[in-house]
């Protein structure tokens, strides 16, 4: 059973990448839908298995950890696998209607999409540092390919910028891996954590950890290394932007979080933890401020990603040298933030795409009077915005609440300013868009209603992120079980 599930999870995306590469756009779309059904079912089933029986290690090819590659299938991993399945399915469905089938280069969307999905699954399940590196590259290159799709000058420029940042980040990570291998003779993350807890030298490994965190932070677009993100996410086609903002940046963050949670006790330091937290805080404010000033709709959303990613980095100061209960709370907060941001941001980009399709322009001001036509997409955009603002009952609120509680419990009150102020700033940029849609003095009479199926997909995502706060408890309970397992191994 698990064998089949793992086969489905790891190899379906790869196989579908090949199949869709051979087909044209329309046939590729049909094939993709079938694949999406399979992937979602497999992800759900795996999640159910882990929720019921707990996590497990999965040695590939039958070779145990230091020699071969072992996958770690625990609750956090399957939660993210499931999240990926949901968001990627939504983006894939949306793209099928959104992309113009007659542009011949759009056929390459499907194979790149599937490779991206495959890479994400590699990262969620990976426990081998080098395997994670390959997974990261799989993600980065397919993401760059997706951004460049169509090959216009602006898109190319964004893609090149993105590629350069991604490559530098990967190399920094790989250098850290090289140092780890030199010191421990193993590539398995759990193996290294085990060796460290049994008294290996630590100074050198600390340097390696910093290198890896730097590389991963660069790929996650942590301030001040965020410069590549807004152009890339802004220029890409909307379903691509959704994938990039919702999932791709989370991949590198996830590795950073895993590294930190496994290795922070021996290798972390107060300064490093606080530094990451402070950079995250600056990102929250800087990203929010920039989002407020962007003239283009998708740039607003892209800068909002910079801000929302900032919250994630509060994980580091809140798990360093704190009690188990607080650390757990911070991890739960991080997980909820990842999930809710992924859902909300995907909804936002997809609905932004619909709005742009409707009014024929990417500028925020062009939305004047749009609410007149009651576009569903505007509503989805607003609902997703509620989650970004961190208002109840959304998942964003639940995450913020847990972060607040963790900060208060550790006495690190300064994060309160970030959490509360950041929420207000995001309200400001969301309402700026909303406000534009209520302006009545423009006389737009032309409004193109996108197909309902295009509008329903972001709506579903937005509702999911809205309702996440209400069902946070069951979602987190699966994760809590897992964290206990994950730390035990």
């Amino acid at each position: 059973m698990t064998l089949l599930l793992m086969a489905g999870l790891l190899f379906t995306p790869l196989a579908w990448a090949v199949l869709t590469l051979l087909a044209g756009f329309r046939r590729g779309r049909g094939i993709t839908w079938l694949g999406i059904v399979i992937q979602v079912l497999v992800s759900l089933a795996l999640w159910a298995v882990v929720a019921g029986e707990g996590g497990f290690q999965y040695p590939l090819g039958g070779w145990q950890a230091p020699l071969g590659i072992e996958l770690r299938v625990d609750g956090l991993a399957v939660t993210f696998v499931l999240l990926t399945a949901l968001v990627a399915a939504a983006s894939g469905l949306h793209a099928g209607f959104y992309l113009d089938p007659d542009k011949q280069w759009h056929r390459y969307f499907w194979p790149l999409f599937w490779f991206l999905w495959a890479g994400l699954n590699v990262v969620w399940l990976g426990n081998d540092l080098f395997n994670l590196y390959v997974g990261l590259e799989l993600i980065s290159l397919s993401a760059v390919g997706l951004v460049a799709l169509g090959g216009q000058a602006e898109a190319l420029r964004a893609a090149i910028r993105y590629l350069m940042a991604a490559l530098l980040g990967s190399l920094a990570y790989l250098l850290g891996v090289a140092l780890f291998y030199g010191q421990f003779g193993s590539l398995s993350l759990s193996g290294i954590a085990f060796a460290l807890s049994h008294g290996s030298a630590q100074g050198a490994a600390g340097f390696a950890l910093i290198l890896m965190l730097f590389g991963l932070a660069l790929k996650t677009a942590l301030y001040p290394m965020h410069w590549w993100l807004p152009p890339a996410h802004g220029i890409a086609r909307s379903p691509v932007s959704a994938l990039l903002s919702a999932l791709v940046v989370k991949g590198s963050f996830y590795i950073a979080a895993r590294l930190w949670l496994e290795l922070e006790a021996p290798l972390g330091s107060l300064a490093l933890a606080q530094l990451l937290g402070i950079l995250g805080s600056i990102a929250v404010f800087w990203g929010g401020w920039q989002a407020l000033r962007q003239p283009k709709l998708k740039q607003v959303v892209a800068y909002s990603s910079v801000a929302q990613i900032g919250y994630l980095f509060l994980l580091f100061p809140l798990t360093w040298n704190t009690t188990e209960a607080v650390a757990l709370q911070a991890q739960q907060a991080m997980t909820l933030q990842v999930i809710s941001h992924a859902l909300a941001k995907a909804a936002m980009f997809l609905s932004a795409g619909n709005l742009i399709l409707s009014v024929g322009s990417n500028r925020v001001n062009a939305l004047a009077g749009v609410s007149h036509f009651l576009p569903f997409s505007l509503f989805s955009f607003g609902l997703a915005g509620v989650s970004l603002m961190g208002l109840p009952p959304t998942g964003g609120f639940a995450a913020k609440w847990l972060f607040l509680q963790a900060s208060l419990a550790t006495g690190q009150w300064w994060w309160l300013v970030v959490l509360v102020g950041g929420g207000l700033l995001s309200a400001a940029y969301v309402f700026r868009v909303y406000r534009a849609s209520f302006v009545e003095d423009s006389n737009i009479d032309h409004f193109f209603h996108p197909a309902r199926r295009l509008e329903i997909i972001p709506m579903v995502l937005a509702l999911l992120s809205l309702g996440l706060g209400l069902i946070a408890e069951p979602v987190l309970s699966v994760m809590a079980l897992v964290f206990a397992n994950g730390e035990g191994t």
Partner: protein
Amino acid sequence: MTPSLLYALAGAALCGIGLFGFILISHLLRKLLAFNLMGSGVFLVLVGLAQHRSGPDPVPQALVLTGIVVAIAATALAVVLIRRYYHLAGKTALDDAARETLRDQGSRQVREEPGE
């Protein structure tokens, strides 16, 4: 000091040189070369450090082979993108951010495409 350790240290130096170039050079192809220099440095560290104590170690060799393929793939893709960018925009470097905003707001109204 064994030769392997020397390789590793040389790799460190290459990383530094590559990083210097990567940050400072704006010409895209040369930036890419700097990246490859850095990559070679990392591979040297990976192999040299591991082989320093126990002699030839096939694992890092295999890793480096994999790494090389990945680096080649990335490089080749980057070259295609850069060449095409040069073909369309006539530039060998990315514009800096300041000029970009200027162009967006300037008199040359950028045509807004319906599909963004």
